[in-house]
């Protein structure tokens, strides 16, 4: 794991001091809310429906136990005892007082955390694979490149006032757990035939009111040229992205307007003019960063653990947890463990102080001090010994953290919606809870299999509804909350944008409609076929029929 050195630490102190001064000027009336707004937004502080919300960056979704405990402490002391993990691997606190914000930032800085660039029209936190360093699928450790980008993009002097916000995702596995193709830039690491590593560069994906799966503008970018190429993309965007209309300002609109080929050409021309010597990262710094992610000190263990096998045979709840929440590790005798934050009646992505502390303890005791956040709003302990899994499971179970539903129908992504958010048209959380309740029976949920439901409370699509197998979008119909369903989206390597099913439904009909969609799927699916694959094979009609036929 990357360790902040004195330079990184002093940088955060300077940032924290700067913000303390700005808050003091605001509280003293020297700054109006209008003047203060851009300053607080640059520190991740939003004014929401009921209070200030502070979004804390979790760089590429990676935390150590001290950081997790500090987040737990902030949740306890400054919020209502919980935090909310987001689809970009960050954490939000929803009940913050302005006067406390500088103290919170100081406390975050003490453990190398911050809220820099969690808002504003700048390069945001880089999303990466929560299984990095643990999965055998990857061709390289994507955290190395995420950290390179973190440093390069931090208070970038040229790219802090872009036309609009800018999000980068990096994955080094064929299976994409980062939604890379719907990011402003998606970097897919590839190994060339000669063994050389490079990135396939995707630009102009996105969600919001104009969703796109991004096109590839470079098939193979050698890794040592990453920063100069990013500079070229950002420069073309900074100069030519639209600034006249906030809804047309993302890079996806520019790429779509020019066409991917023309955009790629402009980037290429700019790239050729950039002095690579100055723009690309020196090899020594790359080596320093890479060394900090050096191999975790795994023990040499047999692939089979008797303790694990026995517990699985004895305890059906554990066996179910293993089936759904435990993934293969590259190291024999270890496993990747997903912690679902989607228990019945829970707000998707919320974790309490107590829960966070347990996760920190487990990571410290059994997991090489490593905790990850997933874009699906769950947590991961990436390196757990199979021998320790029964103990870890029991500890998670005691705190309501052992729900065995990863990637199942009740593992729902939801934005905060109208319960918190000033932009929302409708609530998202209660809809997620309704659907989860409908599929509380895990035997049934397992029978249905992988099914990704994602709910957004408005067209800004923070809940990723466009790339859901079943997407739910909250809309306002004459002051009433309605929900539009869409089918067939995916944010993974087989990315696609969902298609609208039919007229929007009232809140109390959504869970029933999902049930009807599942019913239709179970009727026509072939052996082992996921919901998404069935939809892709049979199309919208049978599903439309299932939901709307009786209504007529």
């Amino acid at each position: 794991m990357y360790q902040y050195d004195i330079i990184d630490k002093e940088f955060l102190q300077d940032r924290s001091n700067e913000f303390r001064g700005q808050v003091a000027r605001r509280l003293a009336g020297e700054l109006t809310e209008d003047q203060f707004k851009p300053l607080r937004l640059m520190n991740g502080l939003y004014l929401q429906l009921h209070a200030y919300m502070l979004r804390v960056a979790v760089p590429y979704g990676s935390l150590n136990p001290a950081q997790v405990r500090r987040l737990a402490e902030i949740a306890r002391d400054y919020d209502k005892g919980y935090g909310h993990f987001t689809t970009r691997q960050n954490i939000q606190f929803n009940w913050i007082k302005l006067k406390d914000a500088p103290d919170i930032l100081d406390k975050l800085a003490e453990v190398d955390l911050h809220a820099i660039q969690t808002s504003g029209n700048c390069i945001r936190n880089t999303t990466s694979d929560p299984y990095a360093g643990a999965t055998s699928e990857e061709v390289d450790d994507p955290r190395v490149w995420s950290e390179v980008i973190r440093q390069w993009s931090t208070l970038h002097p040229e790219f802090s006032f872009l036309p609009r916000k800018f999000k980068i995702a990096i994955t080094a596995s064929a299976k994409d757990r980062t939604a890379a193709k719907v990011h402003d830039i998606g970097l897919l690491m590839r190994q060339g035939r000669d063994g050389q590593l490079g990135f396939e560069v995707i630009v102009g994906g996105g969600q919001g009111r104009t969703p796109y799966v991004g096109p590839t503008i470079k098939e193979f970018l050698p890794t040592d040229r990453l920063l100069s190429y990013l500079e070229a993309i950002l420069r073309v965007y900074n100069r030519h992205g639209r600034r006249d209309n906030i809804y047309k300002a993302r890079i996806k609109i520019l790429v779509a307007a020019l066409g991917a080929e023309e955009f790629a050409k402009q980037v290429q021309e700019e790239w050729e003019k950039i002095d690579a010597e100055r723009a690309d990262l020196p090899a020594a710094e790359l080596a320093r960063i890479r060394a900090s992610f050096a191999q975790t000190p795994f023990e040499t263990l047999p692939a089979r653990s008797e303790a694990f096998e026995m517990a699985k045979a004895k305890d059906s709840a554990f066996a179910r947890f293993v089936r759904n929440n435990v993934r293969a590790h590259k190291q024999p005798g270890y496993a990747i463990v997903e912690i679902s934050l989607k228990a019945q009646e829970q707000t998707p992505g919320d974790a309490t102080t107590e829960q966070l502390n347990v996760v920190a303890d487990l990571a410290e005791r059994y997991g090489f001090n490593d905790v990850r956040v997933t874009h699906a709003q769950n947590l991961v302990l990436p390196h757990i010994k199979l021998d320790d899994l029964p103990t870890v499971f029991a500890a998670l179970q005691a705190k309501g953290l052992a729900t065995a539903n990863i990637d199942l129908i009740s593992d729902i992504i939801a934005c905060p919606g109208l319960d918190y958010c000033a932009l929302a048209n409708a609530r998202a959380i209660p809809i997620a809870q309704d659907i989860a309740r409908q599929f509380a029976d895990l035997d049934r949920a397992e029978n249905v299999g992988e099914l990704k439901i994602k709910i957004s409370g408005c067209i800004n699509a923070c809940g990723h509804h466009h790339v859901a197998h079943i997407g739910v979008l909250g809309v306002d119909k004459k002051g009433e909350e309605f929900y539009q369903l869409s089918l067939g989206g995916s944010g993974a390597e087989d990315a696609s944008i969902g298609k609208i099913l039919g007229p929007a439904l009232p809140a109390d009909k959504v869970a029933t409609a999902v049930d009807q969609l599942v019913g239709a799927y179970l009727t026509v699916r072939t052996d082992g076929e996921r919901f998404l694959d069935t939809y892709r094979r049979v199309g919208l009609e049978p599903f439309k029929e299932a939901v709307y036929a009786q209504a007529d």
Partner: protein
Amino acid sequence: MPKLIELANGEARWAEDAFVNVTDEDAIPDSGDVILSLARFEAEGDALLSSNSRRVGVRIESDQEVEVLAYDLPRIAVVALAFPKYRDGRAYTSARLLRERFKYEGQIRAVGDVLQEQAGFMVRCGFDAFEPNDGATPEAWTKAASRFRHVYQRAADDRTVAFEERAS
């Protein structure tokens, strides 16, 4: 006339502005240093520069590209880059290109919605003169421009980058 802050060796101070900002409607004064719009410069700049009796600057709007000045840059005393709103970040690119790509050594002046909170970014991109829009004093400007002890990326200034500090 807006007050001008100039930055030299990390120190900001008030400066006498010798340049008159000539709008497209104004007649060019008979003598004295002037800053012209790009269109005006393209039409009349050559004649003014050839007379060799005064200094000439050009004002570049945020949607204009500094590349068009490439040929004339050695003779241009000031490039004023406009911020129609502080949020419009195109001038940062323009400034970097002037300094890093075209090796421009004259003054790069920030005009328009120029706020002290952006000082650090502007200085790093190569601006060395500012017409603040928020009443900021040189003291506030110096402070804002030097708030961070470390920087993470190379830009148009000569600051030592974090990875260089680490290597030394």
